[in-house]
């Protein structure tokens, strides 16, 4: 037996270290192993760790077994994990396991799927084959004279999988390597700007090049992606496409699949069953999936021959994970593009200020699409309704109701945008001032009329509404304010006969809900859509004639410095739903602050001007992107306990020149799920300086837990929310 050698293993535990084990046969880096750990058993991955402390061999346990029939995880993937772990200050083992699909986290072997194609065997050459009247069988049989990939066979007949299985068993076909041939369906003709954007990006293939594709809503960004993907596929390479929302994935997947019918496509998002996600992940890693499309977690997909990365709606907040491993998928995607030496396209109608600043600094190149792709389509007119002087019916101003009524009469589709689900955001006692509050959070309980319960939208708590005011005993408690359900009820009364469809998280929880919505909308079975921000993102309903925005003012004067950037993006996106194709659109915004610069910019469609103004404000205040931030967050039973920990942490900081530390400050929502939260904010004008300080400071915090046992804490690099 060979002499046992030590190796380092990353395990899914909250410790910022790797663990030493012995092995009696050499195991390559990236290999999944089963190891004994603290009396139990864990899955681990063999890694390199120059910082590992040497442990005497007699104290080490031995690796139980190597798990895989698949090859070891690739080096560039492990390098991405190492970078992510270091940059986001998350334990290496937890980072690695967060990035792996579920089945690979468990101590079970995994194997490649047989992705080979089929061809008629020698035995079949003498066989007669199915007669021409059996059209499907006949067609498939003759196509099999050449090697056929799975998707190509399936395109000939949906019965292909069953037939191939049968013929394989009969020895009539054999498995062979079959590279699917690229098939490209026709697309629309590009306008000059789109064509120029495609040429510019294509000219940068083969090297790292970050591009910001800044195109107004409806300018045909997706078509630019499709043309670029076509070129990448033609060169035999893969494309990684990141999208913000799960419910955008099926739509985009379908569009990609229609354009490239023979190209295997892996869709990766958290809505998939474990097995499906693993299959897609392995196909991407192996290089057999030409297009890999997914939500933020897909940024961790290994790719054998990546040629291009695309991040759609790059400004979207959902690219940042808000718990555990708090990574930003857009930022990691840029890192990956650099690592792989390929171009990356960040697309948006309302680019993030971070990306705008990167363009200004010359780090990214900008491509503008300033016209709508559809020749006749105009940007919608945006008008404000000053509700300070209006009588409101359930929150709806009379001119707004009249505008809706006109659209219903003309059989045109309207959208009422209310970014609040439920019936009313709170119920109140108007006699003593009591408001329905969540017992576990500093938040209001939202009244839902569908299940007749009060719901906390933060912790999931729900309860029956009280019969009487808990403070004064008055039973006449009233719902205050408007959510989607109340607007639905009000419009049902105000627009008799109109067909109204409400779309929010409560109505689209079912998997196929979106298909149903599309069918109804495209089939002209809907007059008025009522929806939350769910509806604002990327959905292309061709006949939207009016968009009415209610209750948007909340974002104007928030304590969160990013609130107005987000509100502007949200409203521009939702306004962009109006007037696509050949229907001119109108956007009405109900507001108490018609003179606010945000609304003025919205009316003028001045995205660039508003971004410039916001960027100037951020620079003035030394906020991101003019500075870099790290939050140390702590939560405990009381905000005092959390702050005491943070005070102790702050006391350990030796701040170098240019690095500032602020706080502890309570979180904007102090109480969440019975925990009270506070944070420290560390800031510096240069990223490198900030991280050098963290390298020095964070290791010192490890000792604090002893004295603050009841406190949970975490590091949030480049925090997005407070």
């Amino acid at each position, binding site marked *: 037996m060979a002499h046992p050698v030590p190796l380092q293993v990353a395990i899914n535990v909250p410790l910022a270290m790797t663990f030493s084990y012995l092995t009696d046969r050499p195991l390559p880096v990236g290999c999944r192993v089963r190891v004994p750990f603290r009396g139990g058993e864990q899955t681990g991955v063999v890694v390199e760790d120059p910082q590992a402390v040497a442990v005497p061999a007699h104290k080490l346990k031995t690796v139980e077994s190597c798990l895989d029939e698949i090859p070891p995880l690739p080096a560039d993937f492990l390098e991405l994990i190492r970078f992510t772990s270091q940059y986001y200050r998350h334990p290496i083992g937890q980072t690695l396991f967060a990035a792996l699909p579920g089945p690979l986290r468990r101590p079970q072997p995994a194997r490649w799927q047989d992705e080979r194609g089929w061809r008629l065997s020698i035995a079949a050459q003498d066989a007669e084959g199915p007669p021409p009247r059996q059209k499907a069988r006949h067609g498939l049989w003759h196509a099999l004279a050449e090697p056929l990939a799975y998707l190509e066979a399936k395109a000939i007949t949906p019965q292909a999988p069953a037939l191939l299985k049968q013929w394989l068993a009969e020895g009539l076909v054999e498995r062979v390597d079959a590279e699917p041939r690229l098939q490209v369906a026709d697309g629309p003709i590009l306008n000059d700007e789109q064509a120029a954007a495609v040429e510019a990006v294509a000219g940068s293939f083969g090297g790292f090049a970050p591009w910001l594709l800044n195109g107004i809503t409806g300018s045909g960004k997706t078509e630019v992606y499709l043309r670029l993907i076509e070129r990448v596929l033609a060169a035999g390479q893969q494309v990684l496409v990141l999208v913000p929302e799960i419910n955008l994935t099926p739509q985009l997947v379908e569009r990609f699949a229609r354009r490239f019918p023979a190209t295997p496509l892996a869709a990766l998002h958290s809505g998939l069953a474990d097995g499906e996600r693993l299959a897609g992940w392995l196909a991407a890693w192996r290089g057999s999936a030409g297009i890999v499309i997914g939500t933020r977690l897909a940024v961790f997909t290994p790719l054998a021959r990546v040629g291009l990365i695309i991040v759609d709606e790059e400004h979207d907040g959902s690219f940042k994970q808000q718990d555990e491993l708090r990574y930003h998928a857009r930022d990691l995607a840029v890192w990956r593009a650099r690592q792989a030496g390929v171009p990356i396209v960040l697309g948006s109608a309302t680019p993030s200020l971070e990306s705008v600043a990167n363009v200004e600094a010359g780090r990214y190149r900008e491509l503008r699409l300033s016209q709508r792709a559809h020749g006749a389509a105009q940007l919608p007119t945006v008008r404000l309704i000053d509700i300070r002087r209006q009588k409101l019916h359930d929150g709806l101003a009379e001119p707004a109701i009249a505008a809706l009524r006109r659209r219903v009469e003309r059989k045109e589709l309207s959208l009422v945008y209310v970014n609040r689900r439920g019936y009313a955001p709170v119920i109140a006692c108007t*006699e003593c*001032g009591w408001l329905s509050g969540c017992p576990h959070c500093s938040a209001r309980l939202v009244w839902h009329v569908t299940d*007749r319960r009060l719901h906390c939208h933060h912790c999931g708590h729900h309860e*029956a*509404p009280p019969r009487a005011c808990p403070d004064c005993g008055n039973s006449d*408690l*009233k*719902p205050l304010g408007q959510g989607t359900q109340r607007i639905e009820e009000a419009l049902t009364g105000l627009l008799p006969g109109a067909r109204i469809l409400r779309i929010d998280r409560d109505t689209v929880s079912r998997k196929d809900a979106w298909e149903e919505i599309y069918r109804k909308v495209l089939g002209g079975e809907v007059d008025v859509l009522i929806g939350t921000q769910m509806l604002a993102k990327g959905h292309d309903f061709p006949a939207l004639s009016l968009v009415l925005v209610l209750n948007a003012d909340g974002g104007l004067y928030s304590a969160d410095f990013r609130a107005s950037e987000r509100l502007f993006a949200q409203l521009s996106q939702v306004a962009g739903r109006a007037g696509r194709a050949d229907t001119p659109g109108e956007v009405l915004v109900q507001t108490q602050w018609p003179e606010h610069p945000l609304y003025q910019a919205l009316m003028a469609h001045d995205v660039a001007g508003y971004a410039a103004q916001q960027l100037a404000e951020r620079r003035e205040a030394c906020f991101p992107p003019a500075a870099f931030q790290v939050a140390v967050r702590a939560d405990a039973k009381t905000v005092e306990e959390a702050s005491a920990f943070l005070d102790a942490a702050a006391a350990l900081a030796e701040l170098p020149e240019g690095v500032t530390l602020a706080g502890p400050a309570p979180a904007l929502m102090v109480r969440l799920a019975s925990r009270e939260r506070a944070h420290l904010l560390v800031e510096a004008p240069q990223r490198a300086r900030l991280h050098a300080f963290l390298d020095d400071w964070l290791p010192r915090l490890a000792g604090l837990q002893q004295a603050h046992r009841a406190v949970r804490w975490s590091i949030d690099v480049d925090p997005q929310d407070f």
Partner: protein
Amino acid sequence: MHNRLQLSASVEREADLRYTPAGIPVLEMWLRHQSRQLQAGLERDVSCEIQAVLIGEGAPRWAGKLTGQCIAVSGFIAQRGLRNPRLVLHIEHVELIKG
């Protein structure tokens, strides 16, 4: 503390019957009262208008049947809201006055 009001009045207007989130029915109405009362030994005209509300199981029973009717009600009074000092009569007992 005493808080009791008895009033005969005609119902000028009823609001639509509504329900609180807990499902308790609420019927709001506006009452007009006219009578002659004795004051310092002399008879005089009295008239007033007051908002009233009927909360609970009586509300659906009476809803839609009161406008234009003369009723005798008793209950307590309370101010309309936190910052609205107008009084509302909370009806506990209603009776139609025939004739």
